[in-house]
């Protein structure tokens, strides 16, 4: 709670004392783990179990990264961040990478000086209401009390949506998803709004999910992806191509089941060979070992496997691939070639 102010002070202090953040790869290798900023707890995306083991869709990106860089998917330490504290945590160097349903926006990329390395989930902002409220469209929400997480694009989209549609609302600013959930379930807010994926994940944890509905309106574009600090291009490349490797693996049919065998010796598909390091020297170009992508894929499978295991249709969250299908299946996932 006071953490954002604290982190803000930390950034200010770092700025005053002077420090520079180049050479993240060397730092990571030296300390032997990747410090990954995740959300404070959003089932399916990033949540810690009773033993403190983190799992989820965003967490998998961190694990793949750790496997690619250090050869060990467990060599990750997680820092839970709220919508408010995440950027200061990254800017101050507390985390090496932020993988926390963060929307890629112009000002975050350009003005806040971060580098978004890609999109791992194409999303949009939605509204969830109890069915008993009898509301079927977001335009009927006049006067509603709305829970929002502060420091997010959500609160800005929300203000714009209500102002352009000339309807009034009562914002209740909240720090974490857990607090929002408590207030929403108690009826202290009529509506909970955030990324549609977050709504699905939140609803899945309710006692009776069927009593709540997500309204049809999606009011924004929320391309969510991992990000790193500006200015360390090598590190940005590593994170970018690790994510790309996961996506390419799905497209090329490399799975956690067959990746070990495929990486033994060069196969028929030259792109698979280059990806898995049996041909060419892509790993070396990144400053990593030749089997970096093999390790990343072996950590939790390719993009499709990660999706299905954490948030897919067979899980309680039950999100269909939609926009997040491969381009060959009518989705938006399209990774540049490995060559």
């Amino acid at each position, binding site marked *: 709670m006071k953490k*954002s102010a604290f982190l803000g002070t930390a950034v200010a202090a770092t700025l005053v004392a002077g420090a*520079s953040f180049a050479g993240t790869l060397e730092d990571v290798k030296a300390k032997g783990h990747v410090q990954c900023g995740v959300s404070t707890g959003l089932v399916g995306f990033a949540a810690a179990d009773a033993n403190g083991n983190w799992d989820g869709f965003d967490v998998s990106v961190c694990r793949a990264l750790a496997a690619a860089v250090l050869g060990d998917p467990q060599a990750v330490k997680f820092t839970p961040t709220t919508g408010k504290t995440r*950027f*200061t945590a990254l800017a101050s160097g507390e985390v090496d990478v932020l993988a926390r349903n963060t929307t890629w926006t112009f000002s975050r990329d350009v003005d806040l000086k971060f580098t978004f390395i890609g999109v791992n989930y194409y999303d949009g902002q939605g509204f969830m209401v109890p069915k008993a409220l009898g509301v079927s469209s977001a335009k009927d929400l006049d006067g*509603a009390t709305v829970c929002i997480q502060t420091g997010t694009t959500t609160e800005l989209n929300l203000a714009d949506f209500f102002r352009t549609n*000339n309807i009034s609302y*009562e914002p209740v600013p909240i720090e974490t998803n857990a607090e929002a959930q408590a207030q929403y379930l108690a009826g*202290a807010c009529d509506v909970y709004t955030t990324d549609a994926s977050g709504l699905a994940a939140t609803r899945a944890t309710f006692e009776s999910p069927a009593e709540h509905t997500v309204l049809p309106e999606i009011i924004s574009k929320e391309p969510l992806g991992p990000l790193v600090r500006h200015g360390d291009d090598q590190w940005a490349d590593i994170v970018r191509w690790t994510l790309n490797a996961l996506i390419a693996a799905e497209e090329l049919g490399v799975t956690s089941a067959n990746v070990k065998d495929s990486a033994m010796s060069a196969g028929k598909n030259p792109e698979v060979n280059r990806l898995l390091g049996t041909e060419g020297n892509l790993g070396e170009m990144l400053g990593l070992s030749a089997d970096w992508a093999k390790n990343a894929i072996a950590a939790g499978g390719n993009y499709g496997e990660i999706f299905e295991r954490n948030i897919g249709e067979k899980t309680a969250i039950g999100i269909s691939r939609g926009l997040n299908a491969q381009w060959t299946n009518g989705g938006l996932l399209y990774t540049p070639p490995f060559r």
Partner: protein
Amino acid sequence: MSTLSDPPKEGFKISQLIYDTRYRSMTIQVIALILFLLAVGWLATNAARNLAELGKPLGFGFLAERAGYDINQKLIEYNSDSSHIRAAFAGVLNTLLVAFLGCLTATVVGVLIGVLRLSKNWLISKMMTIYIEGFRNVPVLLWILVVFGIMIEVTPPPKAFKGENPEAAMTLFDSVAITNQGVFIPRLSFTEFGWGYIIALLIAIFGIRWITKKAKAKQIETGIYPHTFLYKLAAFMVPLLACYFISNVFTKNQDRDFLVRSSGQITTLADMASADERFDYCLVGGNAGSLKGLSVLEEAGVTVRRKKFVTEKGALSDFSKEKCNVISVRESEADEIMAQSRLDKLGTDGTISRTVADFTTGNNIQVDTPELTKKGIPRFEGGTHIRNSLIALWFALSLYTAAFIAETVRSGIQAISKGQTEAAAALGLRSGRIMSLVVLPQALRVIIPPMISQYLNLTKNSSLAIAVGYMDITGTLGGITLNQTGREMECLIILMAIYLVISLTISGIMNWYNERVKLKER
């Protein structure tokens, strides 16, 4: 004849700066100052250079940009189109509000408990001890969260008030609604003559003080303190009543009109009631005329949605921007406002028409009572909305600080020698009067200085507001603005400056008060 010659003038030697005691302390101070300034300069240039290297040179231009977010509790006109600086200002006012309410409540509760703790009644004094120890030894953040949690989980949601046999009901003659979205209480609405009551109140206060002075003089002269209650009551009531009746002379016959922006021509209330359009009424909070307009519309069967504004100017501005389309104005100003709104109208298709509805402002004080909405999402409309976040912060901060104030008061009272009490008792004073006339006035001198730091603590602790989403200055400038603009350095500098100014002002006022009550030594 001998001439007295001056002692030979010794030249000033540099070494004197260190070895000569006349200069030494000065030298040390100058050196310390230079070192300090150098350190500050080094930190500042370093920060500036690092920021520039990061591509974020120090600049405050972002404050003028559009904030883009909404604030729920605002004491000044603000919407998402306003600037960051306005958001910061709204935040400062919220900080001051909770600090003021908190200090006031903490003082009242604290003094009461401090006095009761010294009570001879064993049970009462032990209960007060428990209160003090309980509150002092648990972090205030916890208390804030506890109160907030209770407000949300224990009180009913607004929908519980709905239906034939509602589970919950309003209290205090159906005027107060306690819900988990906040407490709604009636609100007094005034006309443009509202400021007259402030003047009347000042007159009343001066009148009462004058009567007290006269009575004291009489007591000194004759030894008998005259009965003043009735005079004081009169001094209090007469100015207020006078203001009420005089204002009413003007407002009873003050004609009002509606300005309606719509696609068709709307000249009567019947037109409005039958129009197939959504009407948003620009309601100025606490304004009797605006409130009267709303009730006229409702009586005529026109369904309107309320859009609340803090000032008439804010309402008119949003009316021009088509953010609301019905407004009630004084007839004398209607033409001018219409012309202005037409000028301001930015690419609209609607026309503005003047709806003639025969009504006047009426009473210059009107009560806006909260009521449950009949259509749409069940919620309370009207009155003043005291949000849970404010309640949690206000209660927890005051009860917590009251524990410290109670201890201050107790020690202050105990510092007054027992002889004073005994002497007063010997004069035949009752124990209540001994406390208020003899002990407390003396104890005040001991109490006030530590009290200043309690007030400062409370004010600074109010920055825990973000824990419950109260939009104070740390929530607006130090929270959302900082986060959305990424201007950590600038926001924190301003934040620190604001807290500094608030703290210095509080201690300034308290020190002035302390000077006044302090023992005057002659």
